[in-house]
C-alpha cells in the first residue's frame, strides 16, 4: 500500500455548549470523538454517515478551519517517522513525550505555525455543499477564480486571465463566462466555478463536502464525472463527504462510515457493498432506494432516531438502535479492528453476523 498523505490519529473535536446567565461552559457537543483514519495519496476516500454525525466537522478540522480539541493530523509525513513519534507519545518517560511534542510542531496540522499553515493551504482545498453561498455574489467569476492565486502572490497580474481561462476550460466553461456574476449561473455551473477555484493553487488534496447534494440529478452526474476525470488527470487526493451512498460508490476507492463522531467501518468500496460488517452500514445500505421496481430486498428498518451528540450512548454508540444488540454492547466500547484485507470494523459481533 502507498504512503498515507494524511494520517489522522485520535482526533477529537468538541464544540462547547454554553448556558445560563453567564454563558458558562455547561457541556460539549462531541462532534468528532476519537477518529483514526489514513487517507492514501491519490485515492478518493468517501466519508458517509447520517446528518449531524460529524462529517463536516472532521473535514474542516483537517483543513484547520476548526481547531481540534486534541489528536494529531500528520500531513505528508513518512510512515516510520509518524510511528516513532506516536511511540514516543505513548511512552512512560516525560523526556520522550517532550521530544515528541517538539517534533510535532512541524508534522502535525493542528500545531503548525502561521507561515507553515499558509503554505499548506495552497496544497489543501475545499469545495462546499452549497455553491450559491460559497461564492461572493459581488465578484466577477474571473476574480473569484483568481482570488486564491492573487492572495498568495502566486501569479503575475498579466498572467491571471490566461490562468483563469485554463481553469475554466478544465471544468468545461469558457471565455464567455469570465466577466459575469455568480447569480447569472445555474447551480451546476456555480459548482463548476467553485471547483475551478479550488483547483487554482494546484492542490494535492481537496475536501469535497457534499459537492452535489444541492444539485439536480441530471446536473449531479455532470459534476461527478468531472470530479472523477480531474482526479485522474491531476493525481488529486479527495476526501468525499456525503450522505448519499450511491454517490460515493461511484466516486470513491474506499469508504469510511461514521456514526456519532466515530468511524465504525472502513473498507474498499466494492467490499463495503458486498460484505459490509457493521450493522449500521448494513442498515444504511438496505435503506438506499433502488431505482428499479423489480428489485426485492430485505430492508433493515432502524428504530429510533439519531441520538444526541452532547450525550452519546455509552459503550457502543449504536446500541440503542442496533437490531443485534447484546449485553456486552451496552457495557464495552468496541474498537476498530482489522477484519482482513484492509477492512476495519468496530462492532463486537461482526464475526457472527
Amino acid at each position: 500500500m502507498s504512503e498515507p498523505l494524511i494520517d489522522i490519529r485520535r482526533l477529537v473535536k468538541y464544540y462547547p455548549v454554553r448556558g445560563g446567565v453567564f454563558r458558562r461552559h455547561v457541556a460539549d457537543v462531541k462532534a468528532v470523538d476519537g477518529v483514526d483514519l489514513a487517507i492514501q495519496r491519490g485515492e478518493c476516500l468517501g466519508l458517509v454517515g447520517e446528518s449531524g454525525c460529524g462529517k463536516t466537522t472532521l473535514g474542516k478540522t483537517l483543513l484547520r478551519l476548526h481547531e481540534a480539541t486534541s489528536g494529531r493530523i500528520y500531513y505528508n509525513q513518512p510512515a516510520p517517522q509518524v510511528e516513532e513519534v506516536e511511540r514516543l507519545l505513548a511512552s512512560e518517560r516525560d523526556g520522550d513525550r517532550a521530544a515528541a511534542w517538539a517534533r510535532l510542531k512541524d508534522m502535525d496540522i493542528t500545531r503548525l505555525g502561521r507561515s507553515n499553515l499558509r503554505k499548506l493551504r495552497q496544497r489543501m482545498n475545499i469545495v462546499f455543499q452549497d455553491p450559491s453561498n460559497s461564492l461572493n455574489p459581488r465578484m466577477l467569476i474571473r476574480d473569484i477564480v483568481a482570488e486564491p492565486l492573487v492572495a498568495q502572490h502566486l501569479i503575475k497580474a498579466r498572467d491571471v486571465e490566461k490562468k483563469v481561462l485554463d481553469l475554466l476550460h478544465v471544468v468545461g466553461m469558457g471565455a464567455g463566462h469570465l466577466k459575469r456574476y455568480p447569480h447569472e449561473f445555474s447551480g451546476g455551473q456555480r459548482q463548476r466555478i467553485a471547483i475551478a477555484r479550488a483547483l487554482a493553487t494546484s492542490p494535492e488534496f481537496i475536501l469535497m463536502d457534499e459537492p452535489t447534494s444541492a444539485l439536480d440529478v441530471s446536473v449531479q452526474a455532470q459534476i461527478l464525472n468531472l470530479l472523477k476525470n480531474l482526479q485522474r488527470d491531476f493525481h488529486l487526493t479527495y476526501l468525499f463527504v456525503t450522505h448519499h451512498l450511491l454517490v460515493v460508490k461511484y466516486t470513491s476507492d474506499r469508504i469510511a462510515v461514521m456514526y456519532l463522531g466515530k468511524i465504525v467501518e472502513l473498507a474498499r468500496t466494492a467490499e463495503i457493498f458486498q460484505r459490509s460488517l457493521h450493522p449500521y452500514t448494513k442498515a444504511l445500505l438496505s435503506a438506499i432506494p433502488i431505482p428499479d421496481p423489480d428489485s426485492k430486498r430485505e430492508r433493515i428498518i432502524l428504530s429510533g432516531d439519531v441520538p444526541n451528540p452532547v450525550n452519546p450512548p455509552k459503550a457502543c454508540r449504536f446500541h440503542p438502535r442496533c437490531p443485534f444488540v447484546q449485553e456486552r454492547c451496552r457495557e464495552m466500547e468496541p474498537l476498530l479492528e482489522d477484519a482482513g484485507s484492509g477492512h476495519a470494523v468496530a462492532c463486537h459481533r461482526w464475526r457472527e453476523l
Partner: protein
Amino acid sequence: MQKLIETKNLFTDFNTFEGVVKALNGVGLVVNEGETYGLVGESGCGKSVAVRSLMRIVQAPGRITEGKVLIFFRAEDRSRGIDILRRSEAYMTSIRGDSISMIFQEACTSLNPVLSIGFQVGESFHFHRRAQMLEETIRDLDEELGRGGFFLARGWKVLSRALFARELGALKEYEGAIDRIDHELYRLEEAGSGEPLRRKGALQRRRDRLGEKSVLAEIARRVPGFRRYRRRLERTVRRHVVELLRSLGVPNPERIAEGYPHELSGGMQQRIVIAIALACHPVLLIADEPTSNLDVTIQAQIVELIKSLKQKVISSVLFITHDLGLVAEICDRASVMYAGDIAETASVRELFRQPLHPYTQGLLASVPKLSQAGELATIPGTVPNLIDPPTGCRFHPRCPHAMEVCKGVKPPTIEHSPGHWVACYLYSDGKK
C-alpha cells in the same frame, strides 16, 4: 379503474418583477382510487405548484389561468366529476379538510413552536372529526353513568343528550357562518383587489372573532356542569391523538404529546406532521417531498410508514419527489415532469423498463446505481428559466433527438401503449 382526481390542461403563472413565470404549461394528471401515484422531476419543474394548484392554494403572485381540476369522490357526481376551480372557497375548505390532506415540503416549519404536540394534532380531530368525537364522549359518559346507579344516570343522560344536540346544532350553525363568509371572501378575491379590500378586512375580522368564540366556550357559559363534559371531550381527543401517534411508531406517545416541536428530531417532527394530515382520514394524501431533508435510515422509516398507512387508512397517495429510487419503491404509477410539462406517464414498471421520453431516459441514465461502472450518462445543458421557456417542446434545447418540429408547438400527449402516455414528437409524428 375509478378516477379520484384529475387535472386537465392546467396553466399557472406567477407575475414577478422579472416577468411572468409560466410554471405550469397545460398539466394533465390523474390519480386513481387506491393507487400511489408519483410525481417526479428536477427542482423547479413545477411539482409543488402543480399540487398547490390542484388544492387551489397557489401562493400570492400565482394564478391558475386556465384548466380544470375534477374530483370524483363526492357522491354528487362520481361519473363526470366536479370542477373544483368553479366552486366556492367554502366548498374547497370542506374538501381540503375532509377528503384531501397535504404534507408540505419543509413540513417542520408548518408546526407551531409554542403549542404542544398533543394540542396541534388534537386540533385536527376537533376540527375535522368533531361529530365523531362528540358521539364517543357521550357514549363513554353514558356507559360510565349507567354504572353509577339509576337516579344519577337518568339525570346525566338527559343532560348529556341535551348538550350533545345543542353542540351539534351550534357546530352546524358555526360551520354555516364560516362557509358564508368564506364564500364572500372568495367572490371578493375573484372580483379583484382595490376598494373592497376594506370590506375584506372586516370580513376577515368577523371570521376571526367567530373562530375565537368557540362553540364550546359559548355553551360552557350557558350550561352548568359543562366543564366536566368539556374535559371529557378533551380526554377523548387526547386518546385518539395518542393512539394515532402510537400507530405511527412514535415511541412514548403520551410524553411526546405533552412536548413541543423543538424537542423533537427532524424525523419525529415529520411524523407529527403526517399525524396531523391523517387525523381527518383523507381520501387522498398529498406528500410533497416528505423525506427529502431526512437521512436514509429515517427516510426508510417514513416510507414504510406511508406504505402501511396506505393499506390501512388512506385510499390514494400522491407522492412528490426527485428521487427516482423512491418512486420505484413505493409508487404504482408515476409522471415525469419537465419545466412545467408532464413529459411521460406510465406504470412504474413500464416507466423504468421502457422509458419513452428522451428526458426520462436521460434522467434514469444519470442516476448513480448500485451496479454502476464507467461514466455516468448525463443530460447536457441545464434546466430552463421559466420566464422565457423554450418554444415547442420545452426539452428540445437539451434533447439528443430534437428535430425541426420540436421547436414549433408543444407536442401533444398521446397514449403510446395502453396506460403509457408520452408528449414527444418521436412518437406522435408517425415515426418509430
